[in-house]
């Protein structure tokens, strides 16, 4: 008897023989047979479609087919499709979803010019997309139909014939009007379509370069540009916004020389917007200017772009100018003066904070009134909402700028640090403002979580640079203040922990030494009691963030004497151990990870003496095994498996004592777990053990070819003995047919690795016919059929190798690489489902839950 997947067979009957995805590339006969019935259902207004995803998926399928082959052929071979489209022209109570689908399908088909001509012959296109079609009917009130109309045209507009059609059927005017559609989706798509048509018409009929004289441009392009000009002159902001958005997309997507001509023609109108008060569509204006500035097709200096940018910066409100300033600073080449102006805009709110907080204008580097303009010249930060919004935006923009190579140089690290610290002090209530404006700011910002979050993120990002010792001390002090404060919200605390870790990581180090510097160690001594307190927080988010912070710290400094001493002198390890029994599963999982890390670094040891070491470690192993066997939730069990795998990799003292017993115990529990991720991690641990046993570390790529072990059979069999003893193969073979396919895949990788490692041991051939092998293969067959009750019993290495060689693991791996529901998701299945739902829809079909 052979296993179903035996190599001697050409095909594995239980796995797909079709190449992945092949069925979706061409229309197979089964689908062709089903299609007429489906088209008839779609054309029947009495048959509603229950699942709105079906038509989307159907269209996806048609797109795939037409991308791979001829649309014309598709239509000729499946006349029902044209019939369906013709049916849409009849006046009837059609579903808007089906009508929308038909319009989109028409566009997809007509994207190929020969198919376009074919559809034109029957005048189907003007009837569907012209005035005679849905455009003039009641169906047009449905946004789905309008959206389908636009998307259909978007797909169709791929060639000169399409352009000619669009120009002559009046579609462009309709698109103009759809820019103002009540549906955001339709309006946006209309704008995108205009950009596409403009680009297409500028390609010219012969594909040659268009004229650089705007007056000589094709009529369609001139019409669109004329519409944009008209919109830019309009008084209504929505119209201006649409025009600006169309231009933004144009300059973002098209970098041909004609775009420069377009900008030269339109820039006076754009600049004219700056003279209006208030500036209309400021957000879109900023997007457009940045899009133009980034466009490689435009020579910025010759178009007066820099002047426009500078003018815009000074005209916009601080809130509106922020994104523009950031965009300017991200540009690769831009005049220094403009960069300075942009940077000043970003710094302005912080300068204002300095001004409010100090008698003097603030540390050098942050602009004062001379650069900062009106804000620092006496206009206070207005309402609380505006002030908070402005500060948060400014901090976020600066944070984004910080890691960029093109950030301003010199970078005002110290003033920015000071500003971040000051802001945090203002929010935390520890600031002592000297003037009225400072006191006002203090009132506005006190307890403001939004600013706290933004400032902590920014402060963390600033840790990559240095700062004067005094300021760094202030940084640590304010971080400690936040970590200590009972008023800090869990999100703020998490950010405070993250910022603290980043500052500790980047604190100055003694050359050649990775330990924390004395100042950081002093800070650590203050920090640990705070951490202790936070580990006991009633809020699970806080306990969890604290544990994550502890794990990070231990990973980095667990081997350093100063850190070890401080940690061991604290209650932190003990509290962490207690959190293994936390009621919240996330916390238990984080505690497992933290304890695993502490234990790896020997930090679970009580300071009393080394004699307790063994017992303490032992109990942790037992505790973790207990969690693995009994915890009702997956997170802690998965965390345990990760810790165990790491311990095995690192030859952790407790594991190294009796590795076999450890692995056997863990695999026994993991293989029974209901959570497939735990089972998959069990196989990962098995793989590590396998590598260690065979003495061949696996390549990082599980499928890479590794040189086989050149070893005689005897030692190899001997080497495999421990693997058999821990019942690794029992687990792996069973997992091969696991109902959760990542587990099966992992097992497949493990067995493939084993086979590659033992490929040269040819003397095991004779084992293939032994009764043991036959019984294992029979068991595997039953397992594959779903009957997993029967155990394999004790396996001998020879039998294992023989079975591994007889399995078609490559075939299995190929089959497992597909989605488990690929059959249900196939086009044929989709058509069957759509047909099957006809007539069986109940009254309450729409209840998702």
């Amino acid at each position, binding site marked *: 008897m052979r296993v179903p997947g035996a190599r001697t067979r050409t095909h594995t009957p239980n796995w797909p023989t079709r190449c992945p995805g092949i069925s979706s590339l061409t229309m197979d006969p089964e689908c062709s047979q089903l299609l007429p019935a489906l088209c008839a259902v779609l054309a029947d207004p009495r048959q509603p479609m229950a699942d709105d995803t079906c038509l989307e998926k159907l269209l996806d399928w048609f797109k795939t087919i037409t991308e791979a082959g001829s649309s014309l052929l598709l239509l000729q071979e499946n006349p029902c499709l044209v019939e369906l489209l013709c049916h849409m022209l009849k006046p009837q109570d059609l579903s808007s979803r089906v009508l929308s689908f038909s319009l989109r399908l028409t566009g997809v088909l007509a994207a190929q010019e020969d198919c376009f001509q074919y559809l034109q012959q029957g005048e189907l296109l003007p009837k569907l997309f012209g005035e005679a079609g849905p455009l003039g009917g009641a169906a047009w009130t449905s946004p789905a139909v309008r959206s389908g109309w636009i998307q259909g045209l978007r797909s169709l507009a791929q060639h000169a014939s399409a352009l000619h059609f669009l120009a002559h059927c009046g579609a462009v005017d309709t698109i103009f009007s759809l820019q103002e559609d009540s*549906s955001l989706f339709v309006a946006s798509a209309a704008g995108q379509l205009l950009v596409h048509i403009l680009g297409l018409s500028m390609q010219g009929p012969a594909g040659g370069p268009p004229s650089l004289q705007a007056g000589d441009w094709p009529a369609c392009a001139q019409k669109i540009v004329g519409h944009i000009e008209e919109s830019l002159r309009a008084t209504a902001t929505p119209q201006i916004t649409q025009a600006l958005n169309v231009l933004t997309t144009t300059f973002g997507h098209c970098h041909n020389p004609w775009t420069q001509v377009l900008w030269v023609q339109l820039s006076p109108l754009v600049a004219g917007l700056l003279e209006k008060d208030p500036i209309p569509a400021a957000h879109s204006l900023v997007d457009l200017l940045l899009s133009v500035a980034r466009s490689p097709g435009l020579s910025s200096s010759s178009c007066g772009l820099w002047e426009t940018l500078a003018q815009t910066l000074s005209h916009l409100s601080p809130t509106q100018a922020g994104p523009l300033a950031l965009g300017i600073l991200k540009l690769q080449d831009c005049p220094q003066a403009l960069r300075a102006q942009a940077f000043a805009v970003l710094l302005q709110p912080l300068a204002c904070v300095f001004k409010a907080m100090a008698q003097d204008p603030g540390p050098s580097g942050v602009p004062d009134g001379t650069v900062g303009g009106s804000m620092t010249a006496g206009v206070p930060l207005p309402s609380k909402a505006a002030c908070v919004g402005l500060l948060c935006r400014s901090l976020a923009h600066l944070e984004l700028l910080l890691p960029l190579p093109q950030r301003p140089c010199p970078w005002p690290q110290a003033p920015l640090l000071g500003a971040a610290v000051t802001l945090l002090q203002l929010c935390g209530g520890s600031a002592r403002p000297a003037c009225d404006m400072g006191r006002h700011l203090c009132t506005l910002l006190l307890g403001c979580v*939004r600013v706290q979050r933004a400032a902590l993120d920014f402060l963390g990002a600033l840790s990559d640079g240095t700062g004067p010792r005094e300021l760094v001390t202030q940084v640590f002090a304010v971080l400690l203040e936040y970590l200590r404060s009972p008023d800090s919200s869990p999100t703020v605390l998490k950010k405070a922990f993250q910022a603290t870790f980043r500052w500790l990581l980047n604190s100055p180090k003694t050359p050649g030494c990775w330990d924390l510097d004395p100042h950081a160690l002093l800070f650590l001594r203050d920090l640990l009691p705070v951490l202790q307190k936070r580990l006991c927080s009633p809020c699970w988010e806080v306990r969890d963030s604290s544990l994550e912070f502890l794990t990070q710290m231990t990973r980095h400094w667990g081997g350093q004497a100063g850190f070890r001493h401080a940690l061991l002198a604290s209650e932190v390890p003990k509290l962490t151990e207690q959190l293994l029994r936390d009621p919240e599963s996330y916390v238990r999982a984080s505690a497992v990870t933290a304890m695993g890390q502490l234990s790896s670094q020997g930090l679970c040891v009580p300071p009393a003496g080394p004699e307790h070491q063994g017992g303490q470690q032992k109990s942790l192993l037992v505790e973790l095994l207990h969690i693995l066997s009994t915890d009702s939730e997956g997170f802690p069990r998965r965390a345990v498996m990760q810790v165990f795998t790491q311990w095995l990799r690192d030859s952790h003292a407790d594991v190294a004592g009796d590795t076999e017993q450890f692995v056997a115990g863990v695999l026994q529990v993991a293989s029974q777990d209901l959570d497939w991720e735990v089972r998959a991690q069990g196989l990962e641990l098995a793989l590590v053990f396998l590598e260690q046993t065979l003495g061949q570390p696996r390549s990082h790529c599980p499928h890479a070819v590794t040189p086989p072990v050149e070893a005689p059979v005897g030692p190899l069999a001997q080497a495999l003995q421990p693997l058999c003893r821990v019942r690794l193969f029992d687990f792996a073979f069973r997992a091969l047919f696991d109902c959760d396919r990542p587990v099966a895949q992992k097992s497949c990788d493990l067995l493939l690795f084993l086979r590659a490692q033992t490929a040269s041991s040819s003397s095991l051939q004779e084992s293939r016919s032994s009764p043991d092998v036959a019984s294992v293969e029979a068991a595997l067959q039953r397992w594959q059929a779903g009957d997993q009750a029967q155990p394999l019993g004790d396996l001998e290495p020879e039998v294992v190798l023989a079975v591994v060689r007889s399995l078609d693991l490559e075939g299995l791996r190929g089959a497992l690489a597909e989605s488990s*529901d690929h059959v249900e998701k196939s086009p044929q299945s989709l058509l*069957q489902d759509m047909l099957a739902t006809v007539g069986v829809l109940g009254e309450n079909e729409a209840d*998702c839950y």
Partner: protein
Amino acid sequence: MPEIRVTPLGAGQDVGRSCILVSIAGKNVMLDCGMHMGFNDDRRFPDFSYITRNGRLTDFLDCVIISHFHLDHCGALPYFSEMVGYDGPIYMTHPTQAICPILLEDYRKIAVDKKGEANFFTSQMIKDCMKKVVAVHLHQTVQVDDELEIKAYYAGHVLGAAMFQIKVGSESVVYTGDYNMTPDRHLGAAWIDKCRPNLLITESTYATTIRDSKRCRERDFLKKVHEAVEHGGKVLIPVFALGRAQELCILLETFWERMNLKAPIYFSTGLTEKANHYYKLFITWTNQKIRKTFVQRNMFEFKHIKAFDRAFADNPGPMVVFATPGMLHAGQSLQIFRKWAGNEKNMVIMPGYCVQGTVGHKILSGQRKLEMEGRQVLEVKMQVEYMSFSAHADAKGIMQLVGQAEPESVLLVHGEAKKMEFLKQKIEQEFRVNCYMPANGETVTLPTSPSIPVGISLGLLKREMAQGLLPDAKKPRLLHGTLIMKDSNFRLVSSEQALKELGLAEHQLRFTCRVHLHDPRKEQETAMRVYSHLKSVLKDHCVQHLPDGSVTVESILIQAAAHSEDPGTKVLLVSWTYQDEELGSYLTSLLKKGLPQAPS
């Protein structure tokens, strides 16, 4: 003009991924952040690019509110917060906060298990997302910032489901999420006070349906399970980890107890303990009966329902198994289904909706020969039953809620266009309010009349009271005072107090008017005639004739003078202060009519 704007990104004329943007008095709130399980690419999430184009998400949105833990309401949340980049507050009730990550994790596992799922969030992302959540209690007013406040109301539907009132100043919107107006076996009915919001955004899943009694469906369910088990069959109930499963567990547990049945019931995911834990923890969210009996016996401590082991599926004899996932699209439930499908004694009961592309969808649409991997065909001989236990308000329930909340306008979401159309007409007819049903991407704009709160000084109020006119909410009346706008506050005080507070000197403003009278007599005589006339007409007022010849009525001064050109005409100069504006106008009109003839 102040306005409320509502744009559904999902749930606008569909039942998919709920995600509704509300802009109210300058605050932007996202209501729900759901996922569509019918797609396995980015289309499963709402198209957030329509928000990100407004700048940074965290700056644009003031908060996100999640109504309940179902994935079509919260499934996109980790994607939104950890992948799209929203870093602001997320509000939900305590039970939703506890259960939401379980369902998200459950779905993530299925997505990874199935493979081919692109751009999906990780376990760590779910946790990081949940750490941004601020949990709220029912009826607790939570201050998101100085201006925006939210309040949760009980919605039934599932454990922890809530309706939310969003309020900025005097403008408010209520979002129902999914709700149920009739109590079921473990939850109570939705309730909201007469909060009279400007807009009520309500789900409308069963917009045209009057649902039969849930008891009937329960009886039907129990009967079917019982019959199958009696005939030695195995019953598979595919469920999602938490929610409906617990309701069905209670149902079966009670029935098994009552009928003294012995066939084992299993729950496959090891989630019984967890579910038990949460239902115990949130016992106050369950219905009255469960709360009452909790002391004697906790309904969620199941005697008959045991944890499932994979090997049990092969055991002979009848059994009932609850297995995940709920749509038979991967994992344990699908594996058991394959094993049991061939036996006509067995039964699968689908207690909820299945999207296309799943085995659940296939069998519900009546397909009995299913193609499996390797072109194998699985013949489904087992009985297939669909029993919707979804707990949504039906048409009657929706109307009842509208009646309860008394909104100025209604907006329908989470339903099908045709059904919504029907309900919209019904609401408009019955309640005489506007009802909207925007499609996804469509914005509904509602103008609002802002009511600005004004504080009134005690002094002014006392003075008014002293005049003997008691305040009556139903009869608005005129009150004079000075409005002081200071530090974004409005106060109405007496003029004297205003002058004092603001350190201003008082100036008197008098209105004047000239009235021409034909009277050849001397000025003094004319004044005397005026006095006599007014004295007789204005009996309640103090009319005086002063020594200088002028006449006063309260603060109104009347002086007679000769006309410069016509000696037969006298000019009456009338002047009064703003306090006597009414009387002054009256007097002028009276004098313009002329004086009564003097007795000869």
